[in-house]
């Protein structure tokens, strides 16, 4: 049954599925993989009830391909997977990026590389989410740290993807995906839904890749009377292939500039006790939960600690980190990987504060005590 408005106990994967439907999801294609499977199961149940389509494809590559096709036909589309499946989707993600087809790709991370530990948490796909596909490409990566946030942030994922015509990677972790928490489901009328920019000109005047001031071209649904060409080859404003140096350059630079233009609108960062902090933690996903506890414990012990919690991992909130680095002595970056986002924190801090990583890669979550110990050490 679809959730009615009000408080509900929900699993993270369930919140992802229900939030997506609330955002307007009407096509899901996926291939089962732990720990993301409940998203597919939930959508198989719910989508037909709202007139949406669910299909279990033959593999992960077919799934990303199908959602791109469905999106071009006008349906808000999503797929969900975990690390190994995410790797298989990378070529398709590059295609969606280059052809500017809105879609959402959920990756509930597990321990890797390879088959790793399928049922245990990790945060090892931060760099894969940014750089998994080939070539320079725009991408937005969002990361929730609670079940309630999963519900609200997946709605943002769709809104961003449609508004900016950029694929959005929704990077969850196994703990958030499988834990159950309270979610207050808003009334449908209270949810802000964004639609993709559609052409305002007649079909014979439509240039599918001519961008306006916001650098986002209007997109026409297949079958709506605008016959145009979409290709993963480098294309000009008409959508047809080009190898002309100036046009190849123009496309790469527009996509990059579009991402920069979008950045302030898609970067979500929460601060907790940062104003007077001497040391700070930068964390995301489930690790931000442990970090919040560590910060409270540090304060109880007289150490002025604060937390910067990122819900957007890419584009990396560099301005935000720079400002915090100007105020604090040190930033601790706990991650369930060998140190991926810590490099970005270090880059953004540019020597203004000491940046210290804290890795845990034994398939167990990082504890508040481990973070507290590191905060006391720096």
């Amino acid at each position, binding site marked *: 049954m679809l959730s009615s408005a009000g408080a509900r106990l929900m699993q993270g994967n369930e919140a992802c599925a229900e939030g997506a439907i609330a955002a307007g999801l009407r096509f899901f294609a996926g291939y089962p993989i732990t720990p993301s499977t409940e998203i597919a199961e939930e959508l198989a149940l719910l989508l037909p009830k709202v007139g949406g389509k669910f299909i279990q494809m033959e593999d992960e590559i077919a799934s990303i*391909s199908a959602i791109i096709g469905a999106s071009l036909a006008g349906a808000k589309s999503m797929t969900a997977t975990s690390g190994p499946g995410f790797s298989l989707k990378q070529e398709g993600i590059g295609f969606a990026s280059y052809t500017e087809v809105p879609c959402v790709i959920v990756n509930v991370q597990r321990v890797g590389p390879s088959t790793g530990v399928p049922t245990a948490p990790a945060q090892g796909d931060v760099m894969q989410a940014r750089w998994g596909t080939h070539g320079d490409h725009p991408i937005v990566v969002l990361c929730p740290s609670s079940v309630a946030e999963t519900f609200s942030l997946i709605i943002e994922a769709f809104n961003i993807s449609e508004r900016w015509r950029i694929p959005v990677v929704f990077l969850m972790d196994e703990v958030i995906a499988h834990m159950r928490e309270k979610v207050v489901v808003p009334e449908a009328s209270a949810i802000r839904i964004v639609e993709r920019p559609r052409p305002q000109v007649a079909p014979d005047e439509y240039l599918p890749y001519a961008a306006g001031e916001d650098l986002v071209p209007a997109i026409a*649904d297949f079958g709506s009377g605008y016959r*145009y060409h979409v290709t993963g080859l480098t294309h000009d404003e008409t959508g047809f292939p080009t190898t002309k140096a100036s046009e190849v350059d123009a496309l790469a630079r527009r996509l990059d500039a579009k991402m920069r233009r979008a950045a302030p609108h898609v970067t979500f960062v929460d601060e907790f006790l940062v104003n007077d902090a001497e040391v700070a933690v930068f964390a995301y996903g489930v690790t931000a939960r442990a970090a919040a506890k560590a910060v409270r414990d540090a304060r109880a012990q007289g150490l002025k600690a604060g937390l910067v919690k990122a819900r957007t991992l890419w584009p990396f909130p560099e301005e935000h980190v720079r400002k915090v680095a100007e105020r604090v002595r040190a930033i601790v970056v706990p991650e369930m990987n060998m140190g991926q986002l810590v490099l970005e924190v270090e880059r953004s801090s540019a020597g203004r504060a000491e940046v210290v990583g804290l890795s845990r890669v034994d398939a167990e979550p990082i504890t508040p005590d481990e973070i507290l110990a590191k905060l006391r050490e720096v």
Partner: protein
Amino acid sequence: MATPVTHYLRTSKMPHIWCPGCGHGIVLGAVLRAIDSNGLDKDKVCVVSGIGCASRAPGYLDFNTLHTTHGRAIAFATGIKMAKPELKVIVLTGDGDAAAIGGNHLIHAARRNIGITTVCFNNSIYGMTSGQYSPMTPTGSLASTAPYGNIEEPFDLCDLVYAAGASYVARGTAYHALLLSKLIARAIATEGFSFVEAITQCPTYYGRRNKLRSAVDMLKWQKEHAVSVAAASKMSAEELAGKFRIGELGVRTRQEYCRRYAGLMETAQKEEAERDA
């Protein structure tokens, strides 16, 4: 009176990229005549392709056209068809694209019987990457990656797709262009998954390595080796050795996938309404 094929072409995108003597233009002409004989609305036709020589065809066609990643055309097409079942979705693909990297999508689309028409331009070689062997290269043929002769055996693609569950399967050749057009027209008129293997010639990368130097030699080869389904039924296995059958190879009636899904939606919505009542 048939509409000239130029009505369906983006002539401003010509000349095309295909080599002199290539059979792809003949196959594409057959596709367009088939679309015309079905009287389809240009706005309601969506042509999808993967990567390879054949897969460049949609760029020249005045429909909703999508040139995707290698081997994945049918998977992209599946999303389009499900999102908008009223669209006529046609996949144009090559033998490498459909039978090698995309083989899995081909058999699963046939199994689901989703209403997509796939035309496989089978020139028995990888043309765009200049002549490596494909899953359709005959045993013993030479290719740049089979310099001692191909030791693999090709698929019978039509048997494969029919066994997987397709509603309509046929084979034609560039030489038998009128027949090919008729077969594609029937494929397009089929509600479930339909598949037409179009045998076409690549003198540049297959022919010149395999003693079929010109397009004419290759077309003659098609003429001499093709046997109609009717004639084949009266021939012995020995007589048929080294030949291939052309015509309708498999026709059956099965419910189309999107139609099935519509039934599923109806059931789900009824259950939900009853629960709410």
